[in-house]
């Protein structure tokens, strides 16, 4: 029996956590129990999310869940799927990943690992104390952004976006130091953000892609039948995870409405158009940083007729 310790920066019930459990079950099933995966959720193995890339590269762990949005400091190419407003639905996500995966696989190989599966995060929205229904509501709003792109975009659109440690967010909400948070529907509802911020505005920011990759040396040491089984398990996990997105978003909204969250799915169009406008230069900036590899984005846009 081969035992693989697999770290994940997020929890068991997060989108990635659920996908990891599915992957482990499929691997066990397809290898007849020859490979057993032991999960380490919530960063409990001591690694930060950004550490996973080198942890797998060096063989500290045999495999890991990689949230690609953490890896912009290694290579801006990892940030493709966290560029705002590229995708609007599941088909878009699927098309983006199809255009992306070969080149991404090569990039991961440069870090001594083999890409076997992909997952995704549900899109982020605005959790707020007062309803955010239009661009006017965003002006001067003290909002906690979650990455560099969101920080720049919300600042550009007139909000008072701040960068704040996640551990401070709840106390800051309870005392009124901030009035809004950009995060996904499920992350918000699961940590009870709705107790402070009873309004959620859907903006479909991005659907960031995450992947599972296995250390190349560990991979090469596997007999061919096990490699094949793991690849099959990975592909099936990808399919199931992508297919789950629509029901996942529905489920989140149901849960939120049950907790009396005011879900605003169609805010005044001026909100989104302003955010898209401010974000456009960020995407151009990304293009210039990745050079030729930006062709992947063009291929995706062409495929979806955008």
């Amino acid at each position, binding site marked *: 029996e081969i035992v693989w310790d697999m770290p994940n920066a997020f929890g068991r019930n997060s989108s990635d956590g659920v996908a990891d459990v599915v992957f482990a079950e499929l691997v066990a099933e397809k290898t007849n129990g020859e490979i057993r995966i032991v999960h380490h959720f919530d960063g409990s193995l001591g690694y930060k999310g*950004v550490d996973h890339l*080198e942890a797998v590269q060096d063989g500290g762990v045999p495999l890991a869940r990689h949230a690609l949005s*953490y*890896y*912009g*400091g*290694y290579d801006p190419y990892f940030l493709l799927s966290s560029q705002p407003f590229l995708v609007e639905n599941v088909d878009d996500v699927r098309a983006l990943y199809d255009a992306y995966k070969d080149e991404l696989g090569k990039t991961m190989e440069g870090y001594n690992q083999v890409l076997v599966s992909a997952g995704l995060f549900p899109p982020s929205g605005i959790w707020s104390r007062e309803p955010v229904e239009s661009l006017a509501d965003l002006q*001067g709003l*003290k909002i906690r952004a979650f*990455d*560099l792109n969101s*920080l720049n975009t919300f600042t550009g659109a007139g909000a*008072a*976006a*701040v*960068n*704040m*440690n996640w551990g401070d967010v709840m106390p800051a909400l309870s005392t009124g*130091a901030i009035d809004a948070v950009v995060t996904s529907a499920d992350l918000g509802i699961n940590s009870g953000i709705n107790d402070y911020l009873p309004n959620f505005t859907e903006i479909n920011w991005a659907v960031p892609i995450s992947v599972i990759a296995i250390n190349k040396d560990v991979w090469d040491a596997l007999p061919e039948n096990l490699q094949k089984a793991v690849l099959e398990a990975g592909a099936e996990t990808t399919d199931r995870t992508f297919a789950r997105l629509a029901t996942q978003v529905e489920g989140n909204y149901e849960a939120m409405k049950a907790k009396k969250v005011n879900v605003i799915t169609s805010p005044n169009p001026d909100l989104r158009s302003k955010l898209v406008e401010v974000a456009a230069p960020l995407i151009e900036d990304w293009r210039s940083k990745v050079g030729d590899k930006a062709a992947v984005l063009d291929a995706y846009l062409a495929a979806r007729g955008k």
Partner: protein
Amino acid sequence: MHTLYDRLDRISAWVARVAAQFAVVVLACTTLLILTEIVLRSFFATSTNITEEYVGYGLGTMVFLGLGHAVRTGSLVRVDIVLGRLGPGPRRVMEVLTCLVAFVVMAFVVYYMSIRVGRDFSRGTISTTLAATPIWIPNAVVLTGMLVFLLQVFFYSLGLLIGRPLIKEAESIE
């Protein structure tokens, strides 16, 4: 021979003190940075956007740049149940042994930390924040602090072998 040792030992103690003094400056800067963030957010609806990142680096800097001086001044806590009961001779032997273990363990960490810093540098890895900090810089500061610690342990154990006094643990308060 002994005077050469004493001279080198003084230099190593000086290095540790300077590192710790730098850490005190970092402590003051950390305080000012946080205060700036509070004022900007509360009264000007804006943010430095680097506070979270740099306060984190500041803390790491304080911990490791202070470590060498902490050993020198006896501020680094240890459990003295056994040590406190030994006579002068055995106590000295025990101290040398603990120094040896500390040296080996820290040298191990230093070796792998330097590999990491080298890779951070050659890859040009940066933080994904507004500051886009080259990661090797804060990591190299931590590495420097670890090297200063190694230096102290080395000279302290050498001193023990040639009859120099034990470090006095930080005094109990009256």
